[in-house]
């Protein structure tokens, strides 16, 4: 009996650990390596899907870049993932616009689709209450409100480059 209980506990622990390790979205860095999004102790994770050809994405990317820097100390991590674009195109865009943050790639848009994406920009949110995707451009005030609700007091006014 005790052996069976021990086996059950081991299996349960294993499956829980496996679930904790599972990547919610399969994304890659610009060098092509897989990226681990899940980190222990974080309050929330925001993955901002964008594309270099998307005009409204270009308008709010500076806000997202500042949010990534400002929210990290509050346990809210903001990652930026280019949907369906090559590494060279993303690199060239970031260089041209003087963005210094680490960008990710969703090479064929599969992660974006799997998350329920139907438009760009889109923000995938992981919080203690679950995962969700919010689509469409957001004003600076809406960014402040969104990140505030996740626990990051972020003032997004102004859209200048970082």
């Amino acid at each position: 009996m005790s052996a069976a209980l021990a086996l059950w506990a081991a299996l349960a622990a294993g499956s829980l650990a496996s679930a904790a390790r599972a990547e919610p979205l399969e994304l890659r860095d610009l060098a092509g390596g897989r990226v681990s999004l899940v980190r222990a102790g974080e309050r929330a994770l925001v993955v901002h899907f964008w594309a270099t050809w998307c005009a409204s994405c270009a308008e709010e990317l500076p806000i997202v870049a500042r949010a990534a820097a400002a929210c990290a100390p509050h346990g809210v991590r903001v990652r930026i993932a280019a949907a369906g674009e090559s590494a060279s195109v993303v690199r060239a865009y970031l260089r041209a616009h003087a963005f210094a943050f680490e960008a990710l790639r969703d090479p064929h848009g599969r992660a974006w689709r799997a998350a329920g994406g139907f438009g760009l920009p889109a923000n995938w949110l992981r919080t203690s209450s679950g995962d969700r995707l919010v689509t469409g451009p957001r004003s600076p005030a809406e960014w402040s409100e969104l990140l505030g609700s996740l626990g990051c007091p972020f003032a997004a006014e102004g859209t200048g480059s970082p």
Partner: protein
Amino acid sequence: MRRGLCAALGTLMDFVRCESRSLLARVAMAAALWCTCLPDSAAACSVCLAGDPVFSSLGASAQQAGDLSVFVQLQAFEKTAGVLAHAGTPPPAPDEVERADDQRLDLFVAWSPLDRLTLTLDLPFAFNEIFEDGETHRASGVGDLGLSASVVAWRDREVLPSAWVEARAFVEAPTGDTTRAAHGEIDPHLQPGTGSWDLGVGLAAVKRLERAALYASLFYRENRSGDFGHHAYEYGDAVLATAALELPLGHALARPALEPFTLGAELDFRFAEHDRADGARFAHSGGSILYATPSLRIRLPFHVRERPASLRAAVQIPLTSAWLHGTQREDEVWSFGLYLPL
């Protein structure tokens, strides 16, 4: 009918809110809606329409992997043509004509099981009425069931492409009735079905511009011979071409109040070879026709799975019947459709 449609719509909307329903259950629900929509009376020409049903149902847009949608379309049209000679009876007078007053209800179910691949099932119901020699003959029933596959062969980018080319193929099964008699003979033009397995291949291309979208498609349809009692009848092979422009009014005119409205303008062309009755060419069949088709799509104020439902109304206006063989005249084709993402 309208009350039934409203009741079915309400039930459907309650249904689709429950996301745990299976795909099969959602398709079954769509089929139930289709049955509820059947008109009280109506018509029959199995292959004489023009236009591109994929464009009618989805417009210049593409589904994503996992998307399921239905488009219920009612079409009404009239055609006048010379009479087919029946074996064993005197040949019809040269000026003798029959008029077909047809209505057709199609349920299109589009499903994209994979990225780049969309399967579309067409469940038609035909209501056929033929006026000949002062008599009216009616037949109605399920028509020929069609299945088409569209594969995105090329697109300019992986996510939200602004230009793409699709290769298409379709097959139509002889599920429609071909046994309805008129004045003792089985007239092929009265039947809901063609009695034959028909095949088609084609290409479609879309280019989305900043304020509009362009669409073009070209399709070849090979019709086989069908059995109609003691006779064989084969509709002529056909080439169908559509060129269309879609203009979302709110965006194009920068008027937010007009955002639910999309204007469409199409040119629909059809060339068909002569039909063959018992191997002999039927003189009053085939030829070419060109339609101008204005349309209006209205986005409804509710979304299902983040995608809007819409209504579409269109009228195909024949620019000339002079290119049709023999004695033939086709009148306007009226279409009303309801698009529902599931």
